[in-house]
């Protein structure tokens, strides 16, 4: 044991000395002027998603499938500027510790030019500062935590943040559907909290009242008690559900079964074939705010939907579409820039205007790196998500600076 201790102590001393020695500067934004890469070298893009985590694996798989599809399609079309794209994908297990290791690996070992996050807010949030400090671009597909883009100018989000979606939902609920007495049911994660808060603020600023808020744990599918309470005591004229698909399906079903027939407005959390499958015909009539418009006639959207179905024998959903678009944004930036210079990529993304994606037209990016996009209103008709309009009012969809 004494020998073991002596060994550990010496190691500790060595570490201590290396720590005090002048350290290499952290990988600078630019190691000198960018060299033109060999014209045929593949473009490697890093990616991570929660593929094995039990709770998140459906979304993780959707994101990863879409990432692979994005790369496949761009390569089929000849690559970017003649170079093929290679995907370096990882599973973060929805664990922030893993996300940190993955971010370090991507930025120092894997020789990627940029990163896309296909994961939830936690892993994305901890990876962001590491990628920012390495001077590399990261586009976050669907993580809505406000702090993600605050990590720095190299970090972008592909879709509107929670606060925009909540506002847009309130706009639609109050102005279009004419709701005055609203009940909110929200999942107790950051997704639900953000949406519920911003929805409430905007709804009440426009004359409606939020009369009850029920927070539910992600694992809890039991809504009978809540709906009975809403029906008998609260009597709202609209229900706003800031939940993921399993909850949304139960709420919708219970409302129909218990005879609480008021409009129900959901969010992108319910934008999934899993919602339609679980809720069955009860889903008809439900409204959603989301970024994906399946009726969009643009070729980009239809191509994605068709090819996704072919490739994976599944319907694509908001998570997948967002991941796909994060790649489109990157591809466009790389195409414009022509080199692997991250700073130039960053500027290219920041300068994107009216860029067409599967999840709508990306009007521009804010100074903070958040996307300004129209919020799609969809309604379930005959078991399909159909377009019901969009919110394009810049006042609503432009995220205010933090």
């Amino acid at each position: 044991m004494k020998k073991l201790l002596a060994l550990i102590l010496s190691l500790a001393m060595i570490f201590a000395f290396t720590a005090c020695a002048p350290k290499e500067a952290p990988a600078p934004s630019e190691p000198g002027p960018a060299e033109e890469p060999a014209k045929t070298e593949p473009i490697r893009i890093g990616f991570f998603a929660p593929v094995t985590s039990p709770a998140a694996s459906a979304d993780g798989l959707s994101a990863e499938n879409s990432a692979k599809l994005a790369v496949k399609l761009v390569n089929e079309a000849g690559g970017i500027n003649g170079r093929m794209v290679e995907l370096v994908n990882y599973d973060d297990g929805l664990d922030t510790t893993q996300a940190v290791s993955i971010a370090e690996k991507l930025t120092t070992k894997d020789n990627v030019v940029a990163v896309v996050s296909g994961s939830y807010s936690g892993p994305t949030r901890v990876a962001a500062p590491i990628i920012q400090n390495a001077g590399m671009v990261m586009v976050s597909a669907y993580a809505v935590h406000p702090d993600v883009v605050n990590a720095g100018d190299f970090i972008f989000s592909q879709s509107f943040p929670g606060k925009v979606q909540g506002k847009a939902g309130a706009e639609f609920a109050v102005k279009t559907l004419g709701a005055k007495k609203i009940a909110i049911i929200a999942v107790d994660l950051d997704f639900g909290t953000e949406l519920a808060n911003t929805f409430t603020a905007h709804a009440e600023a426009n004359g409606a009242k939020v009369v009850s808020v029920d927070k539910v744990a992600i694992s809890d599918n039991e809504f009978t008690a809540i709906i009975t309470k809403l029906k008998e005591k609260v009597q709202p004229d609209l229900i706003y559900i800031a939940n993921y698909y399993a909850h949304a399906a139960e709420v919708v079903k219970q409302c129909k079964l218990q005879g609480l027939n008021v409009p129900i407005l959901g969010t992108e959390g319910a934008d999934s074939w899993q919602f339609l499958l679980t809720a069955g015909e009860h889903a008809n009539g439900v409204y959603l705010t989301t970024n994906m418009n399946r009726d969009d006639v643009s070729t980009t959207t239809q191509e994605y939907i068709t090819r996704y179905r072919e490739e994976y024998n599944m319907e694509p959903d908001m998570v997948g579409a967002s991941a796909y678009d994060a790649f489109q944004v990157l591809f466009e930036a790389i195409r414009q820039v022509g080199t692997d210079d991250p700073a130039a990529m960053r500027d290219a993304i920041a300068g994107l205007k009216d860029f067409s994606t599967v999840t709508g037209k990306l009007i521009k990016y804010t100074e903070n790196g958040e996307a300004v996009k129209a919020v799609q209103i969809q309604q379930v008709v005959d078991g399909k998500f159909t377009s019901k309009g969009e919110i394009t009012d810049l006042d609503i969809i432009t995220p205010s600076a933090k």
Partner: protein
Amino acid sequence: MGNYITTVAVNIAIFSLLALSLNIIIGYAGQSMMGHAAFFGIGAYTAAIMTNAGINFWLSLPAAMLVTGALGSIIGIISLRLRDDFLAITTIGINFVMVALFQNMDFFGGSLGMAVKTPSFLGQRMTSTHFLVLLVILIVLVCLLIQKMNNSWFGLALASLRGDEGAAQSFGVNVNHYKVLAFIIGTAIAGLTGGIYAHRMTFIFSSNFAFVISISIISMVVVGGVGTIRGPLIGAILLGAAPEVLRFAQDYRMILYGGVIVLMMRFQPQGLLGEDSFLQRKFNQYISPILNKKGGESHA
């Protein structure tokens, strides 16, 4: 490349401290503590809240230790009243309740988690390497502490807890005293580790301290070798390096993890390097004699 390896080393170091500290409670004191992650979390949030309020990082760490150890003493006292199975479930319950508090109280950031400032050392922002050095020093100190404990009345009392509580008490050893002390020390170290973890991650949330984490820590201790110093260290190294080394099989990660645990419990419940394990016996048989040319004994 260097930064990546350092990061993985930091992960392993954090796991090591957690495993070593849990081992004091479950290995040496033989108590079923299934909620260690809760104390990891209490330390993390305590330190984070303090540095966010402007207090120096280096002061927040001892504070985190104190708060966590104090709460740990409560569990220790509870353990005196409860039978082992009940204790196991109570500690699981405490883990869940703490996570629910972290998740739902705005004081802890609620569901949006808590951002944590990066601390400085001698004017420089701390990097992974700084954290690694700090952690390694702590690991060494903890190992020394455990060694000292084992060679003292404390160790005697704990050994008796594992064997025959009644006999120890008849020797006048205040077994209960030491039981609670084991909880205090074990949880305090976990709290200290939590404080460091929070500052290194720059962001913490409730799910970082969930029951699954408690299970990971227990796995490390039990797979490595309960009741030894080398056991938790090996367990931490294995579990820390595994996700990186096995990236090629990342889709099967959980299956491998579950499978290894089941097989280990079935075939080597004393752990890979536990007191009487296959590897340890081979080590004693072949390698020890070479290391001890003078023919002296080796305790490990």
